[in-house]
Structures are given as C-alpha cells and as structure tokens.
C-alpha cells in the first residue's frame, strides 16, 4: 500500500467556538472566590483556559418578576475573575415567565408576544448595564422544546397551564431581544 500525501490549498477560515463550563450558583454572598476557584480548578485539570462560564438564573417554583429582572448571579458575576470584557466571559440562562407556588402565575407566552412584559426586560437590561455585563451571553427562555418550564411551547408539567405555542414563543423572544438591546445589552 502506498503513502497518503496531503496538500492543503488556501487558509481555512472559521471562527473557533468557546468551550467552557457550567458552574452554577454564582448567586449568594461571598460567592465569587469559591466559584472562581472551582472554575480555575477545572481549567487547570483540562489544561486549557475557560473563556465562558454558564450559570442559570433561578427558574424554581417561586421565581418572581423581580428575580427575573435582577437574578442573583448578576452582581457576583460582575466581581468574578472570569467576567471578561463587559461580561463576555459568562452565559446566563434566563427564565422568561415567573412561577408561583401553584405554578399558575397568570402569565403566558401570548401576553409576552403582545409586549405585556417588555417593561420587565427593560429593567433587566438596566441591571446588566449597571453590573457591567452588557456583553454577557444570554440563553433566553432556554429548553423551550421540553415540558418542564412554564415557557415551554409544549403543554408542560409545571402548573399544567398551556402556555401558547411556537409562534407566541418566537414573538415573545423577539420582543425580549429588542427590548434588551434598547436597554443597552450588546448581544
């Protein structure tokens, strides 16, 4: 069998993607040093820096609009060694509908699509600016194709309210992005 000869012509053009880590619970007092140490430990273990750290804003059964507007991790992310330029070192998963104890808070994707919740996202955008996180990556209404979050486009198991379908999710998502950008988010 002969040899394999290779020849590459031209320079491959691609944008490398960030490879990071999920480090939850950046909320709480005195948190950054502990969480940062854990991220540093992971970086040392894998022998590669961690350009992006993922955390989740609370989406538990008692998430309120104030908690969506100013999630716990924000101020701690602002003080983290992994913040990067204007928060580019973080990715935050954001709930887009509040929960209440009964899971029936009277909010839904259709109202979001109609713009009823834009003021909340203006507030959230202002908090991003206040914390120097204008370049933070946001996972808005994450895992919408499941059935475990209130913003799911499927009939979900959290309170049992049908929350609208795909079209409402898309319209609401666009409202959120437009509103956040108007408030100063650079994403």
């Amino acid at each position, binding site marked *: 069998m*002969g*040899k*394999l*000869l*290779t*020849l*590459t*012509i*031209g320079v*491959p053009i691609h944008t490398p993607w960030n490879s990071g880590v999920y480090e939850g619970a950046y909320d709480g007092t005195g948190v950054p040093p502990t969480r940062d140490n854990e991220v540093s430990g992971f970086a040392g273990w894998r022998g590669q820096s961690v350009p992006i750290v993922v955390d989740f804003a609370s989406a538990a059964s008692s998430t309120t609009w104030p908690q969506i507007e100013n999630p716990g991790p924000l101020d701690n992310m602002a003080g983290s060694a992994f913040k990067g330029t204007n928060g580019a070192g973080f990715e935050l998963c954001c709930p887009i509908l509040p929960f209440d104890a009964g899971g029936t808070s009277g909010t839904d994707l259709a109202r979001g699509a109609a713009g009823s919740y834009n003021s909340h996202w203006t507030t959230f955008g202002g908090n991003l600016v206040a914390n120097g996180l204008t370049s933070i990556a946001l996972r808005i209404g994450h895992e919408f194709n499941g059935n475990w979050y209130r913003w799911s486009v499927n009939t979900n198991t959290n309170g049992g309210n049908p929350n609208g379908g795909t079209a409402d999710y898309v319209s609401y998502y666009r409202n959120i992005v437009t509103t956040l950008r108007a408030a100063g988010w650079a994403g």
Partner: protein
Amino acid sequence: MATNSAITEAVIVNDSGTNATSTAANSISRIVFTAINKGASDTLAITWNHKFLGA
C-alpha cells in the same frame, strides 16, 4: 490517479469530459507548487479552501 511522477500543479476544471484544462475558461481554480513525488500506489489528497465574497 495512478501516476508515478512529480506533481507541480493542481487545477479544478469544469470540462468534465476530458478532465483537462483545455482552455483557461474551463479553470475554476489553479495552483502550482513545489513538486510532490507521488508513486503509482500513493494517494494524494488535496483540500481546497475557497472564500466566496459577496457581490
């Protein structure tokens, strides 16, 4: 291609009938390079990277 020679040129052409650069108009991309000595049983794999610019 079962050649046994020094290869110094690679061309992408659109005259599939002859597989040769009969005219420059049939050449899509061409490059010359320092000779690659390919034996008859060797395989030469060429990767082309093209950047297509918008109008």
